């Protein structure tokens, strides 16, 4: 049942030009960026290779590339998630789901999975770029896959944020701009001043910066798999999905 809903979500993305446009634009921009990073690294390679402790090609290219990819997807994910529930509400198709023998949890998970299927496709296309280095050099596959895994967790968190916000409104555009704002906040929490002392303000700053999505993405890019970071994402996703279920349930309590 979850998969039925997911498959319909996934397919409906491709019925409009939106999904194709997103894939195309992402691929062009990320491809360009990848070549640019590569050319910079290549030019400085002669000098760098003589330097003590050059991190190697993987670590010179991957972190910056994946950081940028995540940021770009932060702009894109709200466009994918905005329709999930808001659009169904607006066009009153949500009654179809509500009067079918399907639970709210199945609806939410189905919709979430549908978007995740699309994001995995995006991830596969992103993965092709670092993997293309295999043709000309040896790269650290462990680091590459840890980095991609980190990107997947981050995208999953993005999608959960977008899904929750889509359940809050009838207007897809409102959902898009609100999810975008929320994601950017999550990302920017990191900018708070670096804690120095031990006062209350510093603890708060530490806490705030701990909540940043960015801080739980960065370690993956350097090949560090920290269960705490993975747990952060999973907790975030579970919480947001649970809230979405609650929100959808509350729909029946108020004026639909």
């Amino acid at each position, binding site marked *: 049942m979850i998969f*039925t*809903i997911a498959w319909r979500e996934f397919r*409906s993305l491709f019925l409009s030009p939106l999904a194709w446009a997103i894939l195309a634009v992402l691929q062009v921009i990320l491809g360009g960026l990848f070549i640019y990073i590569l050319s910079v690294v290549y030019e400085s390679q002669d000098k760098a290779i003589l330097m003590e402790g050059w991190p190697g090609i993987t670590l010179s290219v991957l972190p910056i590339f994946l950081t940028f990819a995540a940021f770009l997807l932060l702009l894109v994910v709200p466009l994918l998630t905005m329709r999930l529930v808001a659009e169904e509400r607006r066009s009153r*198709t949500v009654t179809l789901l509500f009067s*079918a*023998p399907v639970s709210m949890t199945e609806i939410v998970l189905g919709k979430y999975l549908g978007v995740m299927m699309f994001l995995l496709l995006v991830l596969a296309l992103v993965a092709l770029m670092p993997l293309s280095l295999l043709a000309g050099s040896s790269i650290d596959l462990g680091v590459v896959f840890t980095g991609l895994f980190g990107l997947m967790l981050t995208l999953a968190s993005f999608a959960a944020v977008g899904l929750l916000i889509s359940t809050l409104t009838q207007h897809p555009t409102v959902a898009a701009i609100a999810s975008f704002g929320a994601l950017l906040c999550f990302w920017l929490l990191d900018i708070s001043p670096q804690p120095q002392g031990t006062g209350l303000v510093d603890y708060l700053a530490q806490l705030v910066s701990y909540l940043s999505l960015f801080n739980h993405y960065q370690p993956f890019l350097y090949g560090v798999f920290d269960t705490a970071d993975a747990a952060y994402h999973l907790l975030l996703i579970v919480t947001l999905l649970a809230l979405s279920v609650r929100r959808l349930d509350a729909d*029946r309590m108020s004026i639909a």
Partner: protein
Amino acid sequence: MSTEILVEVEHLARDYGDRRVLRDIHFSLRRGEVLGFLGPNGAGKTTTMQILSGNLAPSEGRVRIAGHDLLDEPRAAKGALGYLAETPPLYRDLTVDEYLDYCAALNRLPRREQQPAREAAKRKCGLEDVGGRLIANLSKGYQQRVGIAQAIIHLPSLVILDEPTVGLDPIQIREIRALIRELGRDHSVILSTHILPEVQTICDRVLIIHDGELVLDESIDRLDRHMKTASITVAFHTPPTAGELERLGGVTAVQPEPNGRLRVLHDSGRNPTDELVRVAAERGWGLYEIRPGRLSLEQLFVELTADRESPPAGTSASPTP
């Protein structure tokens, strides 16, 4: 029509904030019955239908469908119902076939039964020729049919249709009505409308709801019989007193009507027409008009919904002066 009770609604109430829009709605529906749900706009028809279909939670009361409580066992209860909302829930970017397949899957039909179910639903709703077309490109009448097909694809015992003929042209209305009558053979149907002839032509029973309260619950047959036979309307050049008329056999009450006519209510078993004509001729009342006082459903509807104080089961409802 069997005697098995399919739907039981008990003491349903619903609040929007402080406003109570439904009060103590209760009725039951037998298997195979077509129930017409009447009421002016804003009376609470749609709210009731949304509650019955699980789209809205009731503030009080219970709904049982095929023996399953809608809140405690939503999956079993919802499996037994099909719902067409006022706005049909159509995905405009799918073709009719794709859409119906999705609906079949949502209603947990096993995969191998989906295609036969889809074809059967299309046949019933006259959609055989448009299976491959995008829903967005269909006319409103066809979209409505797709909506109905969606509601019956899993052969639910109960089909709930909220104003299924709104916005259609007269020919389409006739087709949809024929379709609903057809549905009434295998399914129980609850139909909301504010078109009165629609109820008289297709329903077995009528509920009239007004201001969130049930004001009438009666079968069409009994309603028809009562409306035809329980009164006669007469007019005299020199009218007798009400007392004289009331002394005639079988007469229970005499009520003046606005245009000088009198309405004589009588026991349905004893029709005083013969006696009345004889007596009128003997005493020179100058009887110039007499006809069975047939109350149309429309009159009944207006009476029941205009006056909040009218009696709840109003088959012999008196006209308000």
